[in-house]
């Protein structure tokens, strides 16, 4: 069972963002970056499958130099090797362009499964997985909350809306997008961190993948970022803990009348 896991490095969820002067991205200097939450669950699912069925887990990311940390973290947790799509031409791809880049990088490998997280916590598009599956002509299943490997296929529990689920069976090879909560992602062990240093991170450029400017030109252009206008006027209660609690009870009782 050879599995590729797609990972994305994103700003930590508690980040405070300052929009850049050109208003098309945020200042990254003071941000703390981490691996996208649902991607961690995808990696853990792959490592669990490897533990039961053998084979290799390859992790792959696309991003600036800092994104290599996400690959190192995954290698320390037990992935076997890493593929790093790194090229200035990969800056500001739209989802379709990113799918083309990953497709070019993974097309010649014969993975039984490609796993990725449900969506990235930064841009929140949730498109890369299904788009890549299309580019690679693989079946795909989104919102996977349980997997069971069978002979030549995989049984999946998929989350639907409002507490509904369904089971599906997909032919292998296939691509799955993993919902958070499917497993308990591990932490890297000290041994894993030592072993990581001997593992390969292969860096590939657009030219290595024979990708042209046309392949990567976005069809979706980010024009401007801004802080959303508030729809509600929040009353912030200030003071010592005892003071804010007293204010809140008073407001809930007499202003909102909900006590």
């Amino acid at each position, binding site marked *: 069972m050879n599995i590729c896991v797609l990972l994305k490095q994103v700003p930590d*969820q508690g980040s405070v*963002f300052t*929009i850049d002067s050109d208003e098309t991205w*945020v200042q990254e200097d003071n941000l703390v970056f981490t691996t996208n939450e649902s991607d961690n669950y995808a990696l853990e699912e792959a490592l669990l499958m490897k533990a039961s069925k053998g084979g290799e887990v390859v992790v792959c990311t696309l991003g600036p130099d800092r994104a290599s940390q996400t690959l190192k973290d995954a290698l320390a947790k037990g992935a076997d090797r890493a593929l790093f799509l790194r090229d200035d031409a990969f800056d500001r791809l*739209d*989802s*379709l362009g990113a799918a083309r880049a990953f497709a070019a990088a993974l097309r010649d490998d014969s993975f039984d499964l490609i796993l990725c997280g449900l969506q990235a*916590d*930064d*841009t*929140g*598009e*949730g*498109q890369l997985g*299904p*788009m890549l*599956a*299309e*580019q690679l002509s693989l*079946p*795909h*299943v*989104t*919102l996977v909350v349980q997997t069971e490997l069978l002979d030549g296929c995989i049984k999946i529990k998929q989350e*639907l*809306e*409002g*507490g*509904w*689920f*369904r089971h*599906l*069976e*997909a032919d292998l090879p296939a691509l799955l997008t993993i*919902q*958070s*909560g499917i497993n308990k992602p591990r932490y890297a062990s000290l041994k894993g961190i030592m072993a990581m240093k001997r593992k390969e991170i292969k860096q590939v450029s657009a030219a290595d993948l024979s990708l042209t400017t046309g392949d990567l030109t976005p*069809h*979706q*252009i*980010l*024009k401007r*970022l*801004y802080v*959303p206008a*508030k729809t*509600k006027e*929040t*009353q*912030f*209660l200030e003071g010592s*803990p*005892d003071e*804010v*609690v007293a204010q*809140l009870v008073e407001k*809930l*009782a007499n202003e*909102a009348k*909900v006590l």
Partner: protein
Amino acid sequence: MGKILTFIQHQDGQVSRNSLEALKAAQELATALSHSLAGVVFGLESPPEQLTGLKLDEVLLVPASELKEYTQEQYIAAMNAVIAAESPELLLAGHTYQARDWLPRLASRLERPLVSDCVGYQLDGQITWVRQIFQGKINADVQTTPGLAIVSFQSGAFRSDDLEPGSPTVRTLSVDLSGVTLHVRPGDRFQEGKGTVDLSHAERIVSVGRGIGDADNLHLVRDLAAALDAELGSSRPVVDYGWLDHDRQVGSSGQTVSAKLYLSVGISGAIQHQVGMKNSGCIVAINKDANAPIFEIADYGIVADLFEIVPRLTAAIKEHRGT
């Protein structure tokens, strides 16, 4: 004059609210751009009742028997055929789990952009779509290259009760799906834990997020809920970590609530959570991160350590209610 198609998701003829909301956006855009508007319905012989009184140019029925139940591969093949026949400028849909499953793949097949989870648009010569990024902390204006754009709208971005009335004509389109092989074979839908906790009718909800830090700290919010006669709800991470059962979860993958009082504790308020609770009456947020998106929609905000506030609040509520 171009054409706008809106995909109408339904379950056994019952139209998804998200589709009606997308239809509201479509009505506005069709008027502003002088485009025609069609609602596309898969797998039904006659139009759903909810569409027949609405201002649409037509309801386009694709009744093929393969489309009775949703399968991603049949839906993509069918919509591909509809787009080839109709050449729309826009394909609009609600940003549902089903849409997330098949629209990106359709976009990839057509090599056209999908602008997903939009909250609005602006018109100024061309269409600018508005999306939220960084979990709702920043808005992004997005434009697409000339040609078809596929756009999905966040739940609640438009109001379905504002739909304009009218009387659409009905047209049937037959598509040939005999060549589609299913590589993903779906089973029946089922529900888990149904009816154990119904938050949708709760008048008061105390909802807890990952800020609580550990399952061992949950007694703090349970005590607060008890003091308020409130149900206990949660954000997704709390369920993912196994601290509470799934039937406590509020948000796009859990329950949608509209409580008179929604008191959130240690919840940052990602979009996925907000869509499940933002229609509540009075929203209180207690969070130590002053920039947490939950404060965008809160009536009362307390920026503080929840462990300092919650026990005091429980005591104060008890005293106020004389219990």
